[in-house]
């Protein structure tokens, strides 16, 4: 039976222009898909969306939908105008965790497409901003069927609500010379240790892991995650002086003075009269700029590891927070290295679960209780790398100073410094 198509004059205007149109895609499902259920569902979806465009209002409401055994992972959507658009009145999204680093074979994408058109609307996004594959639009019953089907061949739900969320990692060592760690392994070691906390929301609020292989931070880890892992190195950067000379021969000496030497944030570089690049590695902060400009000539050192920053998040409630350095450098090579990183994550999540207020992100808790108290709570000693500068305010009680100073010297002696 042919469906009565909703008129969509405003959405139709999003079919013009050269960029691919999501409206055209939804219309293809309405007009060309062999499954009548999908035709009807996408027709009503377009009808509701047109109504939103006309009235400049959204008409979806949340609710409670889950799959058997889990408490989260589904974004429930019930229409407030379901009477007018009954075929899409339930239009839930399943958040599915992607493989670390977002790698796919076309055969697996086809298998997922087959399952999704069997049970859902046929609309999918790679990926949402938390990092999940978003399977957009199905009803409560088919949510379970679709999950059961893809769960059998290796896919699991991500987080939604106050829980550990789906993690993200860059392409990293798979295809990038800047990579300083095994991003995929760090990603999976962290998030897969917390599957229970992903699937059963019981934390104060969301908690995100993101892994970037270097300071370019392609995953926006510092700004967007509670637990940011960034690859770095602590020995000398590698310089291929012959390649430096090739670059200079190509674009000229001034280009590299203006774009590399003077752009170093800590003035750690100089270029000698015979075009040798001199690096002061003690001053270098591993910002990646010079490596970005001269990728053939400059490379990270061999003594690689990660820096861990805690507490990044966006505006609500107290304002934007960047992550704060809590572990300046950590080796990630042996299984024990990975285990101790996961243990740190457990310690932090436990402390936050115990002390965070409802709907308070980890960074907000740190802001409220103070970084020093947070460090004390998770058993990490203070380190000047955690700060831009020491305190400016004299409003502080210092009667424990002597003991703290003594402890510092003891730790330094233990570390062999």
């Amino acid at each position, binding site marked *: 039976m042919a469906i009565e198509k909703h008129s969509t004059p405003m959405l139709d205007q999003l079919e013009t222009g050269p960029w691919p*149109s*999501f409206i055209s895609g939804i219309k293809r499902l309405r007009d060309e898909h062999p499954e009548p259920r999908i035709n009807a569902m996408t027709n009503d979806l377009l009808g509701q969306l047109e109504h939103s465009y006309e009235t400049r209002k959204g008409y979806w409401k949340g609710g409670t939908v889950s799959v058997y055994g889990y408490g989260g992972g589904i974004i429930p959507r019930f229409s407030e105008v379901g009477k007018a658009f009954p075929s899409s009145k339930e239009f839930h999204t399943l958040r599915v965790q992607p*493989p670390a680093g977002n*790698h796919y074979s076309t055969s697996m994408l086809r298998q997922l497409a087959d399952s999704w058109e069997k049970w859902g609307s046929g609309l999918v996004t790679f990926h949402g901003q938390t990092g999940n594959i978003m399977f957009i639009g199905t009803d409560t019953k088919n949510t379970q069927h679709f999950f059961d089907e893809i769960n059998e061949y290796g896919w699991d739900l991500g987080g939604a609500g106050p829980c550990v969320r789906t993690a*993200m990692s860059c392409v990293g060592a798979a295809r990038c010379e800047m990579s300083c760690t095994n991003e995929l392994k760090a990603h999976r070691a962290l998030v897969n240790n917390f599957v229970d906390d992903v699937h059963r929301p019981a934390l104060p609020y969301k908690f995100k892991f993101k892994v970037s292989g270097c300071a370019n931070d392609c995953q926006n880890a510092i700004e967007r995650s509670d637990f940011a892992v960034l690859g770095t190195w602590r020995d000398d950067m590698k310089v291929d002086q012959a390649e430096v000379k090739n670059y200079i021969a190509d674009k000229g000496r001034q280009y590299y003075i203006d774009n590399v030497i003077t752009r170093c944030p800590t003035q750690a570089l100089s270029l000698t009269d015979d075009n040798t690049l001199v690096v002061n590695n003690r001053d270098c902060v591993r910002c990646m700029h010079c490596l970005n400009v001269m990728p053939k000539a400059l490379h990270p050192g061999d003594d690689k590891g990660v820096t861990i920053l805690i507490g990044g998040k966006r505006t609500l409630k107290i304002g934007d927070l960047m992550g704060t350095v809590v572990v300046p450098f950590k080796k990630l090579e042996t299984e024990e290295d990975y285990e101790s990183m996961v243990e740190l994550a457990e310690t932090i999540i436990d402390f936050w679960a115990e002390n965070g207020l409802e709907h308070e992100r980890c960074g907000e808790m740190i802001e409220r209780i103070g970084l020093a108290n947070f460090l004390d709570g998770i058993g990490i000693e203070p380190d000047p790398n955690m700060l831009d500068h020491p305190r400016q305010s004299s409003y502080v009680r210092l009667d424990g100073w002597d003991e703290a100073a003594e402890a510092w010297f003891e730790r330094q002696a233990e570390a062999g410094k």
Partner: protein
Amino acid sequence: MADMREPIESGCPDPWQYMHPMMRKNFGQWKYHEHPRPGVLLHVAYSGDKIWTVKAGTQRILDVFTLRKLCDIGDQYAEGYVHFTLRSNIEYMVTDEAKVQPLIDALEDAGFVVGGTQNTVAMISHTQGWLHCDIPGTDASGVVKSMMDELIDEFRNATMPNRVHITTSCCQINCGGQGDIAINIQHTKPPKINHDLVANVCERPSVVARCPVAAIRPAMVNGKPSLEVDERKCICCGACFPPCPPMQINDAEHSKLAIWVGGNHSNARGKPTFQKLVAAGIPNNPPRWPEATAIVKRILKAYKEGARDWERVNEWIERIGWPRFFEEVELPFTKYHIDTWRGARASFNSSSYIRF
């Protein structure tokens, strides 16, 4: 319950099984990369192995027909493996340079847009908006389609001073994230409260606790337990709306768009930065949002003409100064640009540094 299936809590899948064999072979052994043309990257391993990546923009919200078309192209013109970037572009990897141009042609012929590498305006990061979200003030997907139609040449041609990341968000949760340019909903009126529903729908103490400025308090209204908002304190952020849908913050006329610039996640040359407000009061004008796009294009034009190589938007403005930025992009500077939140003082100029 007897027939309910227990989930397999497998978590994040191992990507190794889906990774291009050349990437598996040279994992952690890449030496350098080149940028042969916009939309294409060449990575060379220490072993001498080479892999070409072709990047393409899509509509992001994919129907299964489009997804299968992307797979068909991957099978016919590439090698059956793809990677999705943070900004939802699709990347195909091939090990033979001769495959690059036919792959580009196939993608372009199918309506996808090859580009998005290095000094381009990258794909705008966003989420759903009216299509699927429960709290949106606008339709990010439509805003993005409208803007990318106009910015497509900047996606295709890497002629910006450095990469430009644009984001859009339909509320202050800001799921689009920090960007060199961010186009975000900014409400300008307090929520309109349906007092008949509050007591049944909202957990009142937690709604009170969500407010960043303590403007919400419990109250009896028309004999019913409800919430009231001190409208002199309210900053119209919308934080109360998700936990309490009867506190409707979205308004067809008064929910506006604002534009922010200078967010930069990278540590290169400087520490990561948050975006700053530059324009507000922009009409939320579906289906094409021309007013917002016009301002974005002015900012991009000034940046492209004025910034030096490698300067991101924040670095360009830091060098030329905010007065000149406002002048060049022809935007008004108002008292609303002066921050009032905690830490605001750190944004004031406490020096004699003035550009003339």
